[in-house]
């Protein structure tokens, strides 16, 4: 049950480049009639995407040559509904066939309905080429956007009847927010930035990771880096997990193995980060066991082997298992209870008992009280101090499973090892 939310956020990590490189949507430039070349369209698209990412304004430019389109305003509106869910959008359509231009704006994009929009049109018009014109259009739009910032809100699908709240907080570049915004994971389960294993090994390992994730409803990830960007291996691991949206389901259950290989003979480090159910299942002792099992392979540099050991251990942990201790407990308790029951049943065999009283023979109503007193002798008050609640453990109530809070404010289990 995942809600698909398209979120635009500003990321500190340089991975945004990777993301943008792999994503190749053409939301921003519509070139159905081929007036622009595809590389021109791509470049303009990237520019518009950058503006959207940076300022939250979505610009859409439609360059058409179509005699059947008479109402460019309507065309712009349709383009908006077809191509984007953005709540702050400005659509501009130029039909070169008719020479007509039309616009459509939503949310903060409405700023361009007035003088600002005219500026944009002018710079577009002045330019000799379409490409240059659109570029200038966007540049001018960027300037306006810069002067009129909107909060970088996560763009929600407008729901019927819901209050459209444009002012929800988003995590800023440096400050952690009070409420962590969950992200959709776009990275794969295996991220080998430090290039520690070969492509073949990557394929097989990735398949294992994905199979595990599906089977146990818990995301398992392996990440290798050669640069911690000034963070400790714990911080990096936790942040990588949180800000890249790792974790299965609503609670983001999962575990992540991070390998730091500085490359120049420096000290290498491994770190396992767990979250939610992952932290529950892979508690301290289990993580330590994983680390120790991987140690030899890691020291030897056989990372593929180490990662496979990691997945092996994870599989083993997730296997349904009721500790055999319970068998003894159940059988023992069962035998004792059974014995008690049968002894109770057998005791019914004995019906001969002395009657130590003559209650059956006392004459009803013959009890006569002749004299009595109830004299108060003494009183005694005892006070027992109330049990005070102890301060609850900060990291969780079970000693076997310790957790810490990461920069996102979420709690993770973690174990690190240098090798």
């Amino acid at each position: 049950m995942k809600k698909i939310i398209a979120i635009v956020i500003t990321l500190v990590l340089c991975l945004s480049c990777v993301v943008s490189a792999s994503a190749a949507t053409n939301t921003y430039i519509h070139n159905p009639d081929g007036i622009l070349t595809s590389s021109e369209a791509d470049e303009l698209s990237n520019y518009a995407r950058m503006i959207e990412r940076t300022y939250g304004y979505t610009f859409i430019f439609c360059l058409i040559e179509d005699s059947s389109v008479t109402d460019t305003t309507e065309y712009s509106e349709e383009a908006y509904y077809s191509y984007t869910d953005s709540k702050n959008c400005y659509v501009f359509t130029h039909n070169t066939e008719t020479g007509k231009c039309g616009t459509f704006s939503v949310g903060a994009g409405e700023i361009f309905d007035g003088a600002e929009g005219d500026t944009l049109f002018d710079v577009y018009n002045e330019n000799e080429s379409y490409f240059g014109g659109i570029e200038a259009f966007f540049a001018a739009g960027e300037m306006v956007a810069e002067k009129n910032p909107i909060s970088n809100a996560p763009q929600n699908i407008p729901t019927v009847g819901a209050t459209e709240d444009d002012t929800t907080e988003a995590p800023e570049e440096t400050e952690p927010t009070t409420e962590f915004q969950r992200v959709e994971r776009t990275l794969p389960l295996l991220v080998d930035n430090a290039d520690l294993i070969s492509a073949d090994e990557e394929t097989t390992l990735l398949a294992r990771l994905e199979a595990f994730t599906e089977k146990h409803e818990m995301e398992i990830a392996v990440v290798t880096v050669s640069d911690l960007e000034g963070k400790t291996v714990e911080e990096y691991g936790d942040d990588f997990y949180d800000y890249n949206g790792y974790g299965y389901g609503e609670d983001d259950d999962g575990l992540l193995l991070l390998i730091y290989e500085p490359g120049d003979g420096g000290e290498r480090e491994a770190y396992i980060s767990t979250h939610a159910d992952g932290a529950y299942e892979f508690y301290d002792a289990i993580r330590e066991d994983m680390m120790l099992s991987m140690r030899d392979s890691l020291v030897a540099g056989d990372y593929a082997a180490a990662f496979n050991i990691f997945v092996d251990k994870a599989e083993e942990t997730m296997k349904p298992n009721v500790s055999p201790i319970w068998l003894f407990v159940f059988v023992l308790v069962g035998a004792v209870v059974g014995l008690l029951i049968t002894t109770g049943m057998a005791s019914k065999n004995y019906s001969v008992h002395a009657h130590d009283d003559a209650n059956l023979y006392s004459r009803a109503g013959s009890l006569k009280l002749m004299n009595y007193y109830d004299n108060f002798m003494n009183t005694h008050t005892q006070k027992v101090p109330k049990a005070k609640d102890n301060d609850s453990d900060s990291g969780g109530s079970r000693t076997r499973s310790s957790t810490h809070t990461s920069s996102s404010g979420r709690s993770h289990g973690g174990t690190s090892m240098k090798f």
Partner: protein
Amino acid sequence: MSTLLEQKCPCCGGAVEFDVGVQKLKCPFCDTEFDITAMPQEETNTVEQVNWNSQGTQWGAGETDGMSVYACKSCGGEIVADAATGATSCPYCGNQVVMKGQFSGAYRPDLIIPFKLDKKAAKEAFKKHLSGKKFTPKGFLDDNKLDEIKGIYVPYWLFSCDAYAQMTFFGEKKTTWSDSNYHYTKTDTYDVYREGSVSFDNVPVDASQKIDDKLMESIEPFNISQAVDFNTAYLAGYVADKFDVDVNDCMGRANQRIGQSVLDSFKHETVKGYDDVGGERVNALNVTNGFYKYALLPVWLVNTKWNGQTYTYAMNGQTGKFVGNIPTDENKVKRIGGLCGAGAGLLLYGIAWLIELLGWL
């Protein structure tokens, strides 16, 4: 040597027996029924009511432990019976005989409760008593024994009195409350004194040495209001013993039971309003207006031996209450208890596995 009394049917001369169904004497040969009063009577004797405390006229001291020899009136055979036997069946010809002297003079019972339930009912009750007991050793329930059930009139001393007592107790009243730091309990202790009397009617004590006292106490109560004046005719067809435990020896048990009852009634009915009552002490216990009666009460008895031990079963011949210890097969108890319990444990473990597999843990 005492003479034997046989109840002879005036119609056919056969030996009549007391029939439970019609509560009359009936001749098994010609089926004629006779009212008790129609048969020739034994000499009557008034029974003295003795005040305990005054230690007045003593009943006779305990009998000598010897045996007596009687001659059966029907066949002339010699019957050897112990001193207490009052009525029995002749081992040679099966006729019921009553040893005359056993129930005359000082030994004449004041009361008797005739049998209300016959041998058939007794056998049924015995069977029922043994059924449903899962841990009886195999082979214990044996039909042979059922026939050996005997109807016997057991001699009892019945004690009635007013019991006067003085008692003290500790009574406690508790109040509790709390504030933010403490829980408080305040206990008020009282010295409680009670003085009064309770009356008792017909507290029975088994007056036969041969028969286990505990067994007899277990089949209580008898409804003494249904007792009638003694007549030897009732004995016909049953075994009867006269008492061989002196009344003074029985008194101790009666006092014990009465004392306990007095304590209980005082404590539960007169000491009220306390959260806790304890430390009871009986300062005085006196019996006044005490008298005792000698009664024969009907009991069906059967003995059986198992593993070298004797097990006796008794049924109250008036109310039908059946008691008697049944041996238990200890090994069976342990075996079944342990195995079934362990099996249940195993099942629970399996269920835990199943739950784990289904991912709910």
